[in-house]
């Protein structure tokens, strides 16, 4: 019996019970469709939101002075000169690199004061990267690279009752113990969905911030962006190789652990749901395979009696199960792919409360989809694993089948 013949026999065998095969394959394909839909939506929104959310703060990666992470000291800075920038831009896979000077200060206006987070950014480069200008709700964005003006978060402006054109004082500790004090005009009020940031953030042009903290041409971080979220590990590796020991490379998950945890939790709950779904489908598949084995004991006994090897019989049953599963998988993919493709190009637009919640978290209120091949492969792998587990039963059954008793039909 040639392998092709075994395969043809298996294929014919499964269609002896057309309805059963179709129902089993249908269950697999439905589970696959649901699982793919959900995972595609999850992974799609992770990479979309990551790409978006990281632009405002962490970037894909940040280069920092090794001691900066510890207490964000204004004394722990990296150079911002041309040669250093050239070195950064030659890191393989870097598409964008923007400098930032981040520190703390006491913000004051009128007779109120409050600790604020100061972010010095290169106005044009920053806007190209994070679209900061679009966040300006009132007033305007920075008009020059060294303007003595600030953009303040909406909640912070509320606290100080700031209006456009008002004076705002920043007062704190500068580089190497100097006193940092500056008087600025409020150019604009920006809105951040994240309330904590909105109540603390003050943006300055980078050159103005460097003058305030008397740092010279230095920055607290170089923020790096690459082409795709999935390239981050590779980008991180090449950044480490390029920059050496004197520069610390931190990825977004290290800088914004709360974002990383949120994603990990969401992903885990999605995977759990899928496992439950596949658990149900797995029992369906198992039932079919059990029936396929039990109702054909006599048939198997005849085949063994006429000289068929047990091993070949086992291969036959495995092939039958495999064909059912593959039919299911192919049906699932054929159904899922056009749907996912549609949503990939037309992401679901969220509205109402859900949209507000999303924006609160700093995400865009859309549900993009992912078409990553890993997703499809992963689902296929799960189905095949189920199949292997289910096939153990008929294998054992055939191995133990007693030919004489089987022929008589009394088992």
């Amino acid at each position, binding site marked *: 019996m040639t392998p092709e013949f075994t395969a043809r026999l298996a294929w014919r065998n499964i269609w002896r019970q057309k309805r059963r095969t179709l129902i089993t394959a249908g269950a697999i394909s439905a589970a696959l469709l649901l699982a793919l839909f959900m995972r595609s939506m999850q992974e799609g929104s992770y990479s979309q939101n990551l790409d978006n959310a990281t632009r405002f703060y962490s970037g894909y990666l940040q280069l920092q002075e090794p001691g900066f992470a510890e207490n964000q000291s204004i004394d722990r800075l990296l150079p911002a000169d041309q040669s250093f920038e050239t070195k950064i831009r030659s890191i393989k896979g870097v598409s964008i690199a923007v400098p930032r000077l981040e520190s703390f200060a006491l913000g004051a206006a009128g007779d109120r004061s409050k600790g604020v987070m100061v972010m010095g950014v290169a106005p044009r480069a920053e806007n190209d990267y994070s679209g900061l200008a679009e966040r300006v709700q009132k007033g305007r964005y920075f008009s020059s690279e060294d303007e003595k003006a600030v953009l303040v978060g909406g909640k912070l402006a509320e606290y100080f009752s700031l209006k456009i054109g008002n004076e705002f004082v920043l007062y704190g500790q500068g580089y190497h113990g100097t*006193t940092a*004090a500056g*008087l600025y005009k409020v150019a604009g009020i920006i809105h951040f969905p994240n309330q904590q940031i909105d109540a603390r953030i003050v943006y300055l042009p980078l050159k103005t911030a460097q003058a305030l903290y008397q740092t010279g041409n230095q920055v607290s971080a170089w923020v790096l962006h690459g082409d795709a979220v999935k390239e981050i590990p590779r980008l991180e590796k090449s950044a480490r190789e390029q920059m050496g020991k004197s520069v610390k490379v931190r990825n977004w998950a290290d800088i914004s652990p709360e974002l990383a945890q949120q994603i990990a939790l969401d992903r885990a709950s999605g995977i759990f749901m899928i496992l439950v779904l596949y658990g149900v489908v797995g029992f369906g598949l198992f039932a079919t395979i059990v029936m396929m084995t039990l109702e054909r004991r006599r048939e198997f006994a005849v085949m063994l009696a006429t000289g068929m090897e047990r091993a070949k019989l086992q291969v036959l049953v495995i092939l039958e199960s495999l064909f059912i599963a593959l039919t299911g998988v192919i049906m699932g993919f054929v159904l899922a792919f056009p749907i996912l493709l549609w949503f990939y190009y037309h992401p679901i637009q969220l509205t109402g409360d859900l949209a507000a919640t999303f924006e609160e978290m700093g995400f865009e209120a859309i549900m993009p989809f992912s078409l990553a091949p890993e997703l499809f492969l992963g689902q296929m792998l799960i189905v095949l694993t189920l199949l292997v587990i289910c096939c153990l039963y008929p294998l054992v059954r055939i191995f133990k089948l007693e030919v004489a008793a089987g022929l008589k039909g009394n088992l």
Partner: protein
Amino acid sequence: MKKSLIFLFIVFFGMAGLAQADSASEIITKADLKMRGQSSYTEMTMQIVRPSWTRSMSMKAWTKEQNYSLVLVTAPAQDKGSSSLKRFKEMWNWVPNIERIIKIAPSMLGQSWMGSDFTNDDLINQSSIVVDYIHKLIKEEAFDKAPCWVVEATPKPNAPVVWGKQVIWISKGEYNMRKVEYYDEFEDLINTMSTFDVKTLGGRKIPARQEMQPADKPDQKTVLLYHKAQFNFDIPTDFFSQKNMRDLRI
């Protein structure tokens, strides 16, 4: 008979407890008065020591009673004329190069003063140790060869303070604060202040060197050196005004 014995017992030890609490507060009050008097004037240098740099600042300070103090920075040139004013529970900084007075929010009192290891509260709100804390004598121990009382000070409920606890070593006889340990609300040691070089300044024997050491950063500290002191002179209350903090050019 038995009952009255117990009663006596309670009264006796209760009184003893009271007497002790009283004397701990007395020790603190005396130590506080020792450093500031009814009014005080001091000239000092502050050295901020960091692993990669050090910085030195000169200043003059005036205090009156427990409620008024004014600190003026006289060097280096870029910070010259900066001043901090405290009236009762409020605090302001004058920043000469932007010509603005900044009111320090109560939430900022725990922050560093001019980049040093002293907090705003340590430098300008010293008297609160007398008014805002409950004092308890916990032991006697020598510090820098001087026998000391060790007093534990815990804040009174709702007191506007930044520390969860302070443990203070006060030398017997001289009533000098020789060592202060500052704890946060989780009872973790944050800063330790130690004082050395007791000598006569302004007619009083006081420590001329104070060192503030953060617990988690062994390689950094701030040293305060007293050069001149004067106590119990007449100074009008309106010396401690926002106008004067701007105009001081001494």
